[in-house]
C-alpha cells in the first residue's frame, strides 16, 4: 500500500483537497504562535474536533503516528535535559531535570503532537490523487505568470501513477538479486552502497523504459505539453469548506489574543 490514505466518506474526507492542504499549512504555522496552556488547549480542541469528524478509529490513528514516537521521545528528552533553569528536581552527572526543562518539554511535546496529528489526519483522509489535485489548485494562480501548472500537475500524476509500479519492480529486482546471492542492508558502508548498484541500475533502466514508451503512447493519444486541455477531475468547494476555514481562522485569532 502506497501512502497511508484510509478511504472513507466523512466530512473531513470530503473537504476540498486544496482547502484541506491550505488549512493544514495554516494550522502548522499558528502552532508556532501558541505559547501558553490556553492557546495549546484551543489547538488541541481543534484537532480533536477534526479527528472526531473524520470518523477515523482512534486506534488506527495511533498506529498512524507510531513511526513518529521515537522522534517525539528524543525531542522531549532533549528538552528535559538541556533546557535548564528554575528549580532542580533531579541531577545526575551532566543531566539535570529542572522545572523550566519540564515545562518546555511539555510544550514541545504538545507542539509535536499537534503538527503530527494534523499531518497524519491529512494523509489518512486524502488520497494521493486528491493531494496532487490540491497542490495543482494551490499552484494554479501561478498560471498568470506563465508557470506551466497543468504540465506540473501531469508530472505529479505520472509520478503517483508509477510509484506502485516501480515499488513492485524494485521488490522483484531485489528478489532476483537476492537469489543471485546479494545481501541487502548488511555489511559496512561501502559494501552497502555497492549492494545498491544491482538494485538501482535496473530500477532506473526500467523506469526510463516505461518513460520512453509512455511518452510515445501519450503522444499517440493526442497529448502535447503546450496544448489546451479540458479537465475530468473536479472537486467543488462547498459549505463545509467555508465553515472549516472560518473555524480555523477564528481559533487563530483567539490564539493571537490569548498568547502571552
Amino acid at each position, binding site marked *: 500500500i*502506497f*501512502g*497511508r*490514505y484510509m478511504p472513507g466518506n466523512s466530512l473531513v474526507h470530503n473537504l476540498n483537497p486544496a482547502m484541506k492542504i491550505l488549512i493544514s499549512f495554516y494550522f*502548522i*504555522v499558528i502552532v*508556532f504562535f501558541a505559547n501558553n496552556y490556553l492557546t495549546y488547549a484551543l489547538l488541541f480542541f481543534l484537532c480533536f474536533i477534526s479527528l472526531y469528524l473524520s470518523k477515523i478509529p482512534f486506534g488506527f490513528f495511533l498506529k*498512524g503516528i507510531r513511526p*513518529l514516537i521515537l522522534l517525539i521521545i528524543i*525531542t522531549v528528552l*532533549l*528538552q528535559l535535559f*538541556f*533546557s535548564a533553569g528554575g528549580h532542580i528536581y533531579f541531577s545526575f552527572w551532566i543531566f539535570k531535570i529542572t522545572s523550566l526543562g519540564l515545562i*518546555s518539554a511539555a*510544550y*514541545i511535546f504538545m*507542539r509535536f503532537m499537534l*503538527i*503530527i496529528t494534523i*499531518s*497524519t489526519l491529512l*494523509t489518512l483522509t*486524502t488520497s*494521493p490523487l486528491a*493531494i*496532487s489535485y490540491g*497542490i495543482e489548485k494551490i499552484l494554479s494562480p501561478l498560471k498568470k505568470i506563465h508557470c*506551466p501548472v497543468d*504540465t*506540473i500537475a*501531469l*508530472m*505529479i*500524476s*505520472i*509520478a503517483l*501513477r*508509477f*510509484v506502485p509500479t*516501480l515499488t513492485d519492480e*524494485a521488490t522483484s529486482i531485489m528478489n532476483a538479486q537476492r537469489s543471485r546471492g546479494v545481501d541487502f542492508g548488511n555489511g559496512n*558502508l561501502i559494501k*552497502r*552502497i555497492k549492494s*545498491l548498484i544491482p538494485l*538501482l541500475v535496473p*530500477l*532506473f*533502466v526500467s*523506469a*526510463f523504459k516505461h*518513460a*520512453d514508451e*509512455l*511518452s510515445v503512447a*501519450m*503522444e499517440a493519444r493526442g*497529448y502535447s*505539453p503546450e496544448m489546451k486541455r479540458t479537465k475530468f477531475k473536479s472537486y467543488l468547494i462547498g459549505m463545509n469548506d467555508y465553515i472549516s476555514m472560518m473555524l480555523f481562522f477564528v481559533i487563530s485569532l483567539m490564539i493571537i489574543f490569548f498568547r502571552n
Partner: protein
Amino acid sequence: KLQVRDVVYIGMLMALSFIISKFNINTQFISIRLAFIITVIIGYSYGPIWGASIAGISDILFTFINGQMYYPGFTVSAVLTGFLYGLFLYKNKEAKFSHIVVCQILIVVFVNTILNTLWLTLLYNIPWQTIITARIIKQLITMPIQIAIIFLILRSKNLKKLLFRM
C-alpha cells in the same frame, strides 16, 4: 519548450525519488539519503528553475503522502538545494570536479548547516549550540560521499547513458 518525453521523465524521476528514499543507508553513525541523486539528475537535465520547483513539490507531496510531520522550512531547503544543483550542473557536460565540489560545499554550508539547523532549533526549541557540532561532523562525513556519488554519475559513461536520456 518541454517535449512530451521531458514531462514523462520528470514525473518518472519524482516517482523514483519516492522509491529510492526507501533504500536510504542508515548506519549507527550516519545516514545517506539517496534522493539527492534525483535532484542532481533533474538539475543537470533541466536547470535551476525546474530543479527548484520539482524538489519543492516533491517535498510537500511525499511528506503528506507518507504522513510524516510536515514543516515548511524543509521545503525551503529542498527548493534551494534543487536550485543550486541546477545552477551548477545544468548541461555541464564536462562536469568539472571543482564545480561539483563548490556546489556541494555551498549546499552543505548554507542549506544543510545554516538553514536546516535553524529549522531544527525553531522546531525543537533548542539552542543551536547543542546540535551544531554533531551536525557539522555529520556533514563532514557525508559530503565526500555525496561528491563522490555525483562525480561518479556525471563522469561514468555507462551510468550517464543510463541516467541521462535527453
